């Protein structure tokens, strides 16, 4: 099925839609060719998310409850850019994650690890004028899933990004350097090019680290600036 996929998947820089090692793709990945939409017909120029106005508490997941959550306090910060390295200001970034024990505050997560009443695991912020963003949170734990025997997801934080237009939309996951579980994770491994995969790994950053307070991780996010995909003829 891979040959029906988009050019960015062909060059290895994006995950393949059909990746049978990730079992959930088997009945959910489309099997027909994607139809190339030329840029001039791609008509949505600006996202509108007026349902929310920023609040400092939204970007500090350690302050959302009366007491502090359990776990290793971390700062995750970076810059939102397009491929031409133009910063994107005023963009909404949403983030969600498991707690330090590897449990989501979600009714369908039945992993028998403790919930933390002081951790919602959800945050949001707007990028500043230089495209930068900062979250304070807790380092998430790894957790088991049922994809294959003894399957564990590497520790990760989910990110949702709105850029300046419809084509900037991105949902992805940020990983941590040196995590041995990435080698066994079909979601991470679904990206064919190892250099592209590594763009999902945050970098420990001493300059972001706050003395006697929190470890700092840098994670820049680059959204596609243009479409270089050739037209695909359906077979």
């Amino acid at each position: 099925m891979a040959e029906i996929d988009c050019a960015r998947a062909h060059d290895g820089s994006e995950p393949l839609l059909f990746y049978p090692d990730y079992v959930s793709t088997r009945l959910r990945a489309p099997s027909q060719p994607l139809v190339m939409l030329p840029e001039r017909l791609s008509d949505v120029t600006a996202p509108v998310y007026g349902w929310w106005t920023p609040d400092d508490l939204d970007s500090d997941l350690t302050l959302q409850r009366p007491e502090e959550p359990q776990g290793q306090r971390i700062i995750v910060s970076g810059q939102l850019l397009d491929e031409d390295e133009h910063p994107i200001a005023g963009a909404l970034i949403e983030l969600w994650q498991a707690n330090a024990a590897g449990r989501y505050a979600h009714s369908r997560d039945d992993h028998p690890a403790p919930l933390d009443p002081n951790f919602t695991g959800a945050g949001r912020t707007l990028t500043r004028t230089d495209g930068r963003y900062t979250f304070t949170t807790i380092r998430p734990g790894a957790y088991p899933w049922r994809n294959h025997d003894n399957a564990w997801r590497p520790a990760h934080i989910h990110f949702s990004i709105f850029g300046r237009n419809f084509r900037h939309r991105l949902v992805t996951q940020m990983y941590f350097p040196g995590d041995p579980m990435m080698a066994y994770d079909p979601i991470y491994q679904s990206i064919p090019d190892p250099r592209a995969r590594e763009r999902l790994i945050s970098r420990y950053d001493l300059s972001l680290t706050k003395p006697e307070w929190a470890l700092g991780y840098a994670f820049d996010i680059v959204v596609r600036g243009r479409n270089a995909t050739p037209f695909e003829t359906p077979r």
Partner: protein
Amino acid sequence: MRAPTPSQTVGPFFDFCLTPNTRHGRLFPASASRLRLRVRVLDGDGEPVPDAVVEIWQEGDAPGGAPSFGRLGTQEDGTCEFDTVRPCDPAEGAAHVNICLFARGLLRHLHTRLYFGGDPRLPRDPVLALVPESRRATLVARAHSDDDAGSKDPAYGKDPAYSFDIRLQGPQETVFFDV
């Protein structure tokens, strides 16, 4: 040049962040041209997908306004229902709603378009013209008047309603776009 950040699946546990309530599904509460859009997501076995995120990006009912955005998670039956308006006719082609679909098992989100059944402008739409004729119907929502699909908002109860199935695989697989 910086290489783009790759996509990863939204996973199953997004709703406490992305879809914590249903108000994102009501786009234009007071417009005269309002309607209901009921979107249903089905997998390759025809089973409902109960953990998808459906985003709609659309124009308002008058030209020149800001595009609007709505986002809902699907229910156990694979559906979600937006209270919105019929977007205005574009300069070229037919009125449509852009849809971004995210779910566990989708390593990248999918783009599709919802057009309105019975719209006389459909044959002139330049995007539909890119789609093989045999598959165009997968992009056209059908109007219905049955009361069983009544809106959650009583104010919308008697407004026109359209249903749109997104089939991820199979003989009636919905057309998805590489944008």
